[in-house]
């Protein structure tokens, strides 16, 4: 008796300590979850904080006198004259009208730096399209230069360096007060391809490239993946070869994505002589990469169709193929679609293999077909993020926001489909 009581005593005495340990362990768990979720929050906050300014552009609206004499131009339809003409002269004159105290030639040159380097191109294109506007006065809106844009948007952010002189900053402040320099929604970002100038660069080219690539990926990976899953689940004989296929699929699912890039480079480009940088090759590589994901999820979907369905169909005389195509496949389709959407989301976010097959080139034009040089969203983000020009950082973040929006909506669609269409047996 005394022995037992003393044991109970020991237990009771140690109880406090053990409960403390229990609490501590629990606290570790909470800490771990908060670290993980905190990282997620910081990541998103950082990207939104860096990138929201990417959706804003800085413009300069000026009343420009398209004076032929100052441009050395009297016939805008003549290509030779256009090549020699000075289209920045009217912009400088218009800016000078806004800032009458600027007189010196050196100052005028500084003044010209306020307008983006594509400003004179805008005037040239306008005159080429409408030659009758020569020697008239027009109200035109130009994109501000990168330096002005950074100053207007980030003058209070220490991680940006302002590359305007005191004098130029003073001018910009004056023009801002007058409403000549304005900030607006950056429609350029959504309507143009890449550019050397951050303010003229847009994401449309990369978006179209991603779309074309994903179409190829889906067109290959979905039918092939579903067919492979059907074969392995329903028809494959139990033998070494089938085992070998399964081992291969499982291993491919874990092969680093960059290895698929090597495959694309060595086999698709070098051996078959397909062109570099095109959506077809990119889509092919990504299809091979996503195939295991699609096969594995499709097999799970086929497996979840109860055997009673198959038996009932067989019982009324359907052939094995009819059972599969008429009954199993439609019932497994929601699961297969879900898996494929997740596979596509993976492919949309993938960068490394595409770098190796040359989709990393600087491409200004929006791609217009499966065989035209293109880049994709994540690669465009990579290009901007590794660019030295500071204006590209906010574009990279803005691009990330767009990429994440697509990914989150694809995943949400997959979850919705699963909830909506999946049947529990």
């Amino acid at each position: 008796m005394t022995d037992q009581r003393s044991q109970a005593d020991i237990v009771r005495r140690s109880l406090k300590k053990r409960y403390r340990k229990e609490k501590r362990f629990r606290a570790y768990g909470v800490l771990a979850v908060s670290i993980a979720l905190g990282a997620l929050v910081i990541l998103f906050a950082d990207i939104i904080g860096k990138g929201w300014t990417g959706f804003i552009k800085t413009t300069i609206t000026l009343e420009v006198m398209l004076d032929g004499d100052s441009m050395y131009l009297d016939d805008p339809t003549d290509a030779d004259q256009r090549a020699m003409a000075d289209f920045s002269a009217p912009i400088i004159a218009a800016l000078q009208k806004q800032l009458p105290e600027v007189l010196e030639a050196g100052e005028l040159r500084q003044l010209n730096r306020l307008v983006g380097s594509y400003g004179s191109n805008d005037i040239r294109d306008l005159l080429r399209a409408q030659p009758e506007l020569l020697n008239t006065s027009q109200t035109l809106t130009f994109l501000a230069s990168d330096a002005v844009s950074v100053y207007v948007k980030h003058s209070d952010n220490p991680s940006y360096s302002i590359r305007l002189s005191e004098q130029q900053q003073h001018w910009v402040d004056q023009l801002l007060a007058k409403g000549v320099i304005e900030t607006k929604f950056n429609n350029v970002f959504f309507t143009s391809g890449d550019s050397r100038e951050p303010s003229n660069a847009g994401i449309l080219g990369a978006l179209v490239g991603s779309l074309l690539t994903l179409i190829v990926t889906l067109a290959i990976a979905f039918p092939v993946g579903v067919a492979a899953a059907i074969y392995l689940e329903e028809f494959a004989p139990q033998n070494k070869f089938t085992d070998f296929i399964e081992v291969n699929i499982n291993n491919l699912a874990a092969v680093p994505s960059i290895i698929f890039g090597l495959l694309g480079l060595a086999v698709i480009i070098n051996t078959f002589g397909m062109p570099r940088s095109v959506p077809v090759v990119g889509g092919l590589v990504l299809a091979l990469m996503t195939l295991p994901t699609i096969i594995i999820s499709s097999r799970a979907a086929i497996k979840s169709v109860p055997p009673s369905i198959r038996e009932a169909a067989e019982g009324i005389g359907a052939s094995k193929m009819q059972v599969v195509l008429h009954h199993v496949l439609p019932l497994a389709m929601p699961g297969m679609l879900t898996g494929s959407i997740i596979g596509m989301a993976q492919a949309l976010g993938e960068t490394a293999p595409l770098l190796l097959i040359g989709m990393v080139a600087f491409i200004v034009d929006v791609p217009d077909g499966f065989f035209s040089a293109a880049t994709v969203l994540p690669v465009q983000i990579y290009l901007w993020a590794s660019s030295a020009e500071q204006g590209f950082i906010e574009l990279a973040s803005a691009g990330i926001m767009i990429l994440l929006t697509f990914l989150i909506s694809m995943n949400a669609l997959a979850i919705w489909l699963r909830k909506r269409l999946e049947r529990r047996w």
Partner: protein
Amino acid sequence: MQTANLLPLVLVLAVVAYFLAHSRSRAVAEPIGGIRNLKSLPFYYAARASLWCAIPALLVLAAWAGFEAKVIQMIVIGSLPPELAPDSAGRASLLLSQISNIASGRLSPEFAPEGVVAAAELLETLRAQSKTFMTILVLLIAVLGASFAWTRVAPHINAREKVEKTLLRIFFVCAAIAILTTLGIVFSVIMETFRFFQQIPFWDFITGTSWSPQMALRADQVGAEGAFGVIPLFTGTLLISVIALLVAVPTGLLSAIYLSEYASKRVRSVAKPLLEMLAGVPTVVYGFFAALTVAPFIREFAEMIGLTASSQSALAAGLVMGIMIIPFISSLSDDVINAVPQTMRDGSLALGATQSETMKKVIFPAALPGIMGGILLAASRAIGETMIVVMAAGLAANLTVNPLDTVTTVTVQIVTLLVGDQEFDSPKTLSAFALGMLLFVVTLLLNVIALKVVRKYREQYD
């Protein structure tokens, strides 16, 4: 006609064949008393016709499109006069791009030797001829196939069986693509790796401690002798992976334990999808985060406490990679923890153990092999991860274990060596394939071991 246009055209032909065969089968059935006297439903005769129309034509189309460019290149190079004939693969690709630039009008023919201009003209004609031939051949095969199937629409022929057999074969080929992919990977890396080891001894590659793949362009160039020792790259890869695992394993494991054992249903239903979101974030985003936010932060922090950190420290890449792997570890350990039978849990709790004691002394040991397997899989992910290190780790191949230093990894080097112009006869380009081979073998080994461990452990309780 373009390949891209020919493909839909063949498919349209297949649809036409379908409808023709469908009406033909009904016409055949009419005199003998309706379609129930046919061996198969009209659908199967029709399906057979479209299969016959499309499959051979598409196979020919694919083969033609696949080999066209290569064959034409060979003919064009072969047509060059002997004094222009290229002596190396690099020279050949230069010549080819010159020829195709002249052919497409981007380069003026005035600046090129006569033989090259002639080759450009040859290229143009060959391309045009090839297009015409391909179009005619593919369409001919499609029509022939459909006509053959048309003659096979007869009451005594069991079209269903034939169609089902063809479908089964197609399914089989699709499944075998996985093997083809693996073979393709092995083939592509082995060929180039082999050529690499002909120039650089295998032993130097494996045991060398210095990596600088710049080869001398001229013989008299100073300090540009290539060194292909893989050890600094592997140390760098391991350093970053170890940092990543040090972050991910405790966090992921404890999150999994907390979410599966302690958290209320509501917390779990919110926290788990959020954790999985971390897994869905593309690696380029993590790379951006590591390079532009974490790395500068670490450098400033290190300066504050009196250390010097490189602006491309291994720590930044490793930390962010760790965050990326957290959901991977947590979902894998969640699976194995849940696979431990409830009876063991109940037994321990019935003896008076607290929940944490049950976890630490009963469930964790039982789940350990599975968790180890998960960690191995995560390690293989970390080793093969590319974008984070490309953006946040450096290019300098330092042999160091200081996490504040710059290191480079196998994947970074593959990307740097292969982005841009390549010469497939210099060891510099070929070394990327040797690195790829190494990466493939290491990750494959890790995966095989991990899958074995996980599977073996699962069988214990089933």
